[in-house]
């Protein structure tokens, strides 16, 4: 089957095929039987020979395999190592020297569990583990791609994630909220956070300058499908955009079943109010209803005083002369209006036939968020210029279009020339209306009432102090979508009903309805307890974040091209146990961290074990792990006394779109002077803070379950010469006090230096001081230890 397809190599759009010959050909049935595509099985806890060793079930699974291979696990890590390990693991920061000493003195059996619980309860936990999820959610504060416009509201989603981890939001609910938070039945105080959660679907990379709008939409949806399938299910569905997936049982129809759900969903910033302001918002809404009703009444009354036979009304874009731009509405909700084409002297002229002479009310319909006054000149009479277009209506878009009364003017029967001018900018003018009025005084008093009501309406509408915006999605026009032949959105094939993966699925099949997009059903489908992938994938992610390797080593690929689990029974056990514990991530942390498997030392010197299992895939010792970029930066700030542990009240804003060298310098200064934790730094796609990217911080373009870890000279150059690190080292030097090597070691490494190390340090200090003096030598020592292997790694 695969050989036959080689002939058509060129025509096949995706590259998956290039991988063709490298794997065994799967029969159709085999593909469905792939271990990850059938629900997790229930295994009993295996028996072990060394019965005293296991502290919980995890240990039984691990030890059983070790005993099978005749390997003895390493001894438990020392307390100083353990406390540093657990601090970095749960909150991404080092323990203070005081905390270390306290722990070393506490010999009770509960001491370790207490620390785990304290850390899980601290707000720093969410900042650390929320950040892990943000890698998966490809969180970014700009659109990335060809241009780089800021996403000014994306950070609300970031804070939502941090908060969700801190409150141990059950993972199934976490999925429901991110996919369909807007569609869940919610109490008023839950609704805001749930709408914020849907930012997950909105914050992806987008090519905003794409001229082909059909392709643009299809690309955005493809990004959503890719993220949803990778992050929650650890599989790639995107291949099926162009052809049936070559390796996993994902037909093209499944892709377009999912695409239909996202075609029925639109990305739109939502205005929300804080729960405590709900009441106020309700009042405002009620008052607006009253005002609108009154206005309607007055307008009706008003019509009694006007001569309905002699209303002259026209569209602003129907000018006979003019240099203004005509901006056409794209849909029924948008009006076509005129405005300036950039700064200049704008004008538009109209020829108007007046049927009956008399006093006319002149009204303009326009939208303006800020005042752009203009003038009206009738029949070239420059001595009687009428000021117009000066009001504000609350915004620029079509929803803010409204009639504004400009003046009363006597017009004779016959033709007149109306000239509208505005300089340099022009309100968004939609229509002009002339109405002949009889009882001028009555009209004027009525007009005053109307104007006052309108003024109040604008004030209420523009009172946004308590409202804020979030990036979010909501249902749009609900419809199924067609297959795009070979992935080309202009080539439409068969229509596919909205739905989910047909071959990788829990037992219970759900279906979409005509009333909503299907995101709610998608979330329900994904969180079925017997879904083959959802629980396994998250359990494996959490295991990976604790151990630096997954039970399935290809964290984001559970498909047939991924790797087999090293401990399949343990993985299924943990997945089922996780669901049994109400999808609680904190419970899983406790289980993992209280196991002996987690608490092993890093002693890898056992020659027999080394020979049998050089990669340590059986977990016979703990792997030494490098700090993530954020942990490194936060730790440097912390030990230097410069870290502010509070969350910032507002996001740091940097220039993302077309930054000049001066902007970039300013951005860098902003980053370097920022004292909050790294999770709060803006993630400007493609222009990330280099301190973070050089240490493996991802570029937020796609789901990243596993960060790349490289060792390149550019990192070393950064460590040696980066002014930020050097200045932090100076703070550290000052804070500890010259010559206090013991304190320095306790602060940085949670231990005291050995005599051997003291010898090296003294040698360094003497030689350095001879060149540059004691102060510089001490600062240089602090700098050297900050960039040392021991500070950058956890044992």
């Amino acid at each position: 089957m695969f050989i036959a397809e080689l002939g058509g190599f060129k025509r096949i759009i995706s590259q998956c095929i290039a991988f063709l010959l490298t794997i065994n050909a799967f029969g159709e049935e085999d593909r469905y039987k792939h271990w990850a595509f059938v629900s997790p099985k229930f295994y009993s806890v295996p028996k072990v020979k060394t019965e005293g060793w296991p502290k919980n079930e995890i240990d039984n699974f691990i030890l059983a395999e070790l005993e099978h291979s005749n390997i003895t696990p390493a001894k438990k890590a020392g307390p100083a190592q353990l406390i540093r390990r657990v601090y970095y693991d749960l909150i991404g920061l080092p323990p203070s020297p005081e905390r270390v000493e306290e722990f070393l003195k506490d010999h009770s059996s509960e001491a370790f569990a207490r620390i785990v619980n304290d850390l899980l309860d601290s707000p720093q936990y969410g900042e650390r583990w929320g950040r892990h999820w943000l890698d998966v959610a490809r969180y970014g504060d700009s659109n990335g791609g060809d241009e780089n416009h800021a996403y000014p509201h994306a950070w609300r989603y970031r804070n939502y994630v941090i908060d969700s981890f801190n409150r141990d939001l059950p993972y199934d609910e976490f999925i429901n909220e991110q996919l369909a938070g807007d569609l869940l039945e919610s109490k008023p105080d839950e609704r805001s956070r749930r709408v914020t959660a849907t930012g997950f679907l909105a914050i992806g990379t987008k090519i905003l300058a794409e001229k082909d709008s059909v392709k643009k939409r299809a690309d955005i949806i493809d990004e959503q499908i890719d993220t949803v399938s990778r992050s929650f299910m650890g599989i790639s569905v995107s291949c099926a955009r162009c052809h049936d997936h070559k390796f996993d049982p994902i037909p093209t129809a499944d892709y377009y079943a999912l695409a239909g759900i996202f075609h029925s969903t639109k990305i739109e910033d939502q205005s929300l109010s804080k729960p405590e302001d709900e009441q106020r918002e309700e009042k405002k809404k009620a008052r607006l209803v009253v005002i609108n009703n009154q206005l309607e009444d007055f307008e009706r009354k008003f019509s009694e005083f006007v001569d309905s036979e002699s209303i002259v009304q026209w569209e602003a874009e129907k000018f006979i002369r003019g240099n203004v731009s005509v901006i056409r509405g794209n849909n029924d909700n948008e009006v076509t209006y005129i405005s300036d084409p950039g700064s200049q002297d704008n004008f538009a002229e109209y020829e108007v036939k007046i049927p009956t002479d008399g006093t006319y009310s002149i009204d303009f319909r326009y939208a303006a968020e800020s005042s752009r006054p203009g003038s009206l000149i009738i029949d070239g009479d420059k001595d009687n210029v009428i000021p117009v277009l000066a009001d504000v209506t609350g915004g620029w878009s079509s929803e803010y279009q409204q009639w504004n009364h400009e003046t009363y003017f006597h017009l004779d029967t016959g033709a007149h020339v109306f000239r509208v001018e505005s300089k340099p900018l022009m309100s968004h003018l939609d229509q002009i209306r002339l109405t002949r009025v009889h009882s001028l005084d009555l009209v004027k008093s009525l007009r005053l009432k109307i104007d006052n009501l309108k003024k109040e309406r604008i004030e209420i509408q523009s009172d946004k102090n308590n409202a804020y915006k979030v990036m979010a999605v909501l249902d749009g026009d609900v419809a199924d979508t067609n297959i795009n032949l070979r992935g080309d959105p202009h080539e439409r094939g068969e229509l596919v009903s909205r739905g989910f993966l047909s071959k990788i699925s829990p037992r219970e099949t759900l279906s979409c309805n005509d009333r909503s997009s299907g995101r709610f059903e998608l979330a329900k489908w994904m969180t079925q307890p017997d879904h083959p992938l959802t629980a396994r994938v998250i359990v494996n992610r959490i295991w990976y974040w604790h151990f630096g390797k997954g039970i399935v080593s290809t964290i984001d690929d559970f498909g047939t091209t991924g790797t087999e689990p090293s401990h399949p029974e343990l993985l299924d056990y943990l997945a089922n146990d996780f669901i049994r514990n109400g999808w609680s991530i904190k419970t899983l942390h406790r289980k993992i961290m209280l196991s002996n498997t987690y608490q092993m030392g890093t002693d890898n010197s056992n020659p027999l074990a080394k020979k049998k299992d050089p990669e340590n895939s059986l977990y016979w010792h703990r792997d030494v792990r490098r700090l993530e970029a954020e942990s490194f930066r936060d730790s440097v700030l912390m030990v230097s006394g410069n870290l502010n542990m509070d969350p910032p009240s507002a996001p740091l804003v940097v220039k993302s779109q077309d930054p000049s060298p001066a902007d970039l310098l300013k951005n860098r200064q902003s980053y370097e002077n920022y004292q909050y934790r790294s999770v709060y730094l803006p993630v400007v796609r493609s222009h990330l803070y280099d301190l973070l990217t050089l240490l493996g911080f991802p570029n937020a373009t796609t789901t990243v379950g596993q960060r790349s870890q490289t060792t390149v000279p550019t990192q070393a150059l950064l460590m040696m010469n980066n002014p930020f690190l050097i200045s932090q080292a100076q703070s550290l030097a000052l804070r500890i006090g010259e010559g206090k090597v013991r304190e320095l070691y306790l602060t940085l490494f949670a231990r005291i230096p050995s005599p051997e190390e003291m010898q090296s340090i003294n040698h360094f200090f003497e030689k350095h001081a001879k060149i540059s003096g004691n102060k510089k030598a001490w600062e240089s020592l602090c700098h050297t230890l900050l960039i040392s292997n021991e500070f950058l790694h956890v044992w």
Partner: protein
Amino acid sequence: MSGNMQSNFTSRRDALNRICVGFGGIALNSLLQEYSSADSGVNYPHQTARAKRIIFLFMHGGPSHVDLFDYKPKLYSENGKPLPFPERSVQFAARGNIFAPPWKFRQVGQSGHWMSEIWNHLPEVADDLCMIHSLCETNVSHGGACMKLHTGDEALLRPSMGSWVSYGLGTENRNLPAFVTICPTSLHGGVNNFGSAFLPAQHQGVPLGTPGYPNTPAKDAKFHYMRHPSAGRREQELQIELLRNLHSTNKFGGTDLEARMASFELAFRMQMAAPEATDLSRESKMTRELYGMDGSETDNFARQCILARRLAERGVRFIQVSHANSLPFNNEQWDQHSHLEKGHSINVKQIDKPITGLIKDLKARGLLEDTLVIWGGEFGRTPTSQKGNGEVGRDHHPDGFTMWMAGGGVRPGIRYGSTDEFGYHAIEDRMTIHDLHATVLHILGIDHTRLTYNSNGREFRLTDVHGEVAHKILI
């Protein structure tokens, strides 16, 4: 066969990821030798390489092929008339009628290449150039087109051409990065255009100068973090010695920790090599004059071209030189939607002498034989005028445009492919960006279908599943 390749890639990746494994305590010199041989390509080249390195002269904004190299008499005779066929449906801006180039064309050199009279110096090296008149693409926006040109994809973030070359061939000089981009712009893909995406980080382009908008002038362009703000060489040596001593007392480390120690020693060497490589004060007066490094409007690009030659001499694999947002333009350099005559005159003035100087200089030093020089932008410009205010200009035009190559085993003095009589559609020997990439990799000795990288369970290529090598342009 592919099965074997797969396992080789894995071992090669391991080798790359642990570039510095196990050299602790060995003298630095021998260390560096080890690197060069370890990184000279385990699987590559696949075939005989005709060039060892690339210099890509990137003309940001879209230089007008019909005004520079692609002579179309019809544009003069039909000036002001509408095109006899409909224009493409997705356009960047509305177009007017046929617009004759403001310059005359003449044939130059033995090769008889057509060049407009806008060029004063380039005709001197015309016979070294291989003109490709049949580039063709689809995306009309700068962003999409720039990303396609640099990475092979117009929307998704993929490794750039230089990163693939670095990944495939490694470097010839371990003291310098394998891929350097001189004065890059931050526009239209920006750093993505020299990013390594999912390839290991050491393959990303290292910028000389900060990618900004406008970008750094060449005279201020430097590598980052090459110098400690205050400490001298001896102090840094002491630091590295201490790092190593403390490291050696740590038990239970591993190869990654050892690699990190070695990377400090390497970095220290790079600090020595990089300033020397970019120091233009070492260039003779004659060379400076050859390129036009004399303070006039050619100065900036001349410096970039001399830097490119110095890096090429020192074994950098892929060097990109960007003609982008330099004065007096504060945006896309060649993007003359209006004021075509004025804008293109200034642009050509800035690059004409420096590029000619570069080719002459490479030739004189024997470097042109194994260096492939590529000149081009993300698209060409329409044969029709663009509707709008002010002086006449031309709109973006991806359907048919010109690039040229020189050196590196490419046939000099020939013309490859052509556009129709209006310079609109590429009609003969059409060359897409995938084809261009396939050809460039081929010249470097790499089979583009076999240079792959597995990311998230999928094998990726620079050319996706496309790409035909243009064999006719090869010697």
